[in-house]
């Protein structure tokens, strides 16, 4: 039996270095995953010492490199679901911002902790999905010797392909947090949930 809850360490392995199957420059999802992760990793590798002593600067770097790749507002709306109805756009963005800050910080921590990881493998794209929705499948070596399968769901927006979900061993970040956060927002209101997210009381993953 596989420990399904290995999911919770996914952010630590969000990406490290990248083993390139097909080195194509482009704005398709596979190229985006490859270029973004290898770019971040190269920068971390170059200035590891300074980032180690100043994790906040790494968080800024990750934020700058990663955010353009993500459709944070869309993820937030998916997670809020019904509970997001009637909530003004600004509030949804505030909620999305609170979630993404947590994610970025976790990711930055992971980069420092698992620096000497073996390369991330990007599996060849399958012709399964459509022109609006696709999935990039990757494999990350774990320190224990096993592999964590991490997939990214992308959809096409007016600004090109954007990732909106991370799926680890079949466990979707959006689906799982939706079922936790939606009822909490319905019960306690979005303001309280945002407050709990920003204060660190409500965390996303370990």
């Amino acid at each position, binding site marked *: 039996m596989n420990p399904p*809850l290995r*999911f919770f*360490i996914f952010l630590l392995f969000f990406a490290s270095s990248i083993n390139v199957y097909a080195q194509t420059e482009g704005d398709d999802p596979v190229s985006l995953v490859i270029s973004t992760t290898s770019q971040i990793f190269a920068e971390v590798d170059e200035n590891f010492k300074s980032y180690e002593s100043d994790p906040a600067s790494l968080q800024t770097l990750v934020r700058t490199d990663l955010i353009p790749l993500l459709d944070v507002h869309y993820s937030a*709306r998916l997670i809020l679901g019904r509970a997001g109805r009637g909530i003004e756009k600004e509030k949804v963005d505030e909620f999305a911002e609170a979630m993404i800050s947590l994610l970025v910080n976790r990711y930055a921590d992971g980069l420092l902790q698992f620096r000497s990881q073996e390369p991330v493998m990007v599996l060849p794209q399958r012709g399964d999905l459509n022109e609006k929705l696709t999935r990039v499948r990757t494999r990350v070596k774990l320190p224990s010797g096993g592999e964590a399968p991490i997939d990214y769901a992308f959809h096409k927006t007016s600004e090109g392909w954007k990732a*909106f979900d991370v799926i680890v061993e079949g*466990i979707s970040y959006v689906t799982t947090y939706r079922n936790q956060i939606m009822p909490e927002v319905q019960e306690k209101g979005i303001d309280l949930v945002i407050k709990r997210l920003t204060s660190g009381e409500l*965390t996303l993953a370990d």
Partner: protein
Amino acid sequence: MRYKLQVISIALLSLLLSACAGTQSRDTDPENDPWEGFNRKVYAFNDGLDKALVRPVAVGYDFIMPDPFQRGVGNFFRNLDAPVTFLNQILQGKVTQSADTFGRFLINSTIGLLGFFDVATRMGVPFYNEDLGQTLHKWGYEDSRYLMLPFFGPSTVRDGTGRLADSYVHPVGRAIHGRNEWGYYIVRGIDLRARFLSQDAELERAYDPYVLMRDVWLQNRRYQIYDGDPPLEDYDLYLEEDLPEQDPDSRQ
């Protein structure tokens, strides 16, 4: 003595089940989990047992056992599952893959010293995980009700049944069937539990731990069933006002 133990454990079970009869039973997922009220009671029972007994033992085990030894124990248990995987691969028509499982079992049981060392993986033999629950899915029993089993944890009607049947194929399961030999299951359970210790805090902090465990388990199970390549979630549904109602009685 053994029968006494059984009687005591059944009495304990019914006591705990009735004790937590007051727990919430909302319908959070009528489609997959129509028995949520019952399942929550079993969950509460498992959780109580975990906090009182299983977790402390697992923490001790994790503390005492050096990591390489713990890995070896995990490999040993995993190797014993190979005959079950092999048979189910045949039942699913995955003949080439079943040859890998057969070879893996031979290599690890011999050179790997009864499975403690996973030599086959280092030799590049792929690992597969199949069981009767997955086979039944392949045969058309696709949707099954979520069922929280006492002691064993999350399952479905299909997978719980499959599990029971698989134990007649399992080398250790076969040997101890019909006898009250719980040692194997206890050690295996402790070993398994020790692997999840790092996730306890997350579960503890969740808004609804029962739902979190169910979601994680069902999604991962689907992932196993589709051999790591399940269809993507229908995200569009998430934005719709109301999720489509399905007749809960359509599930078995």
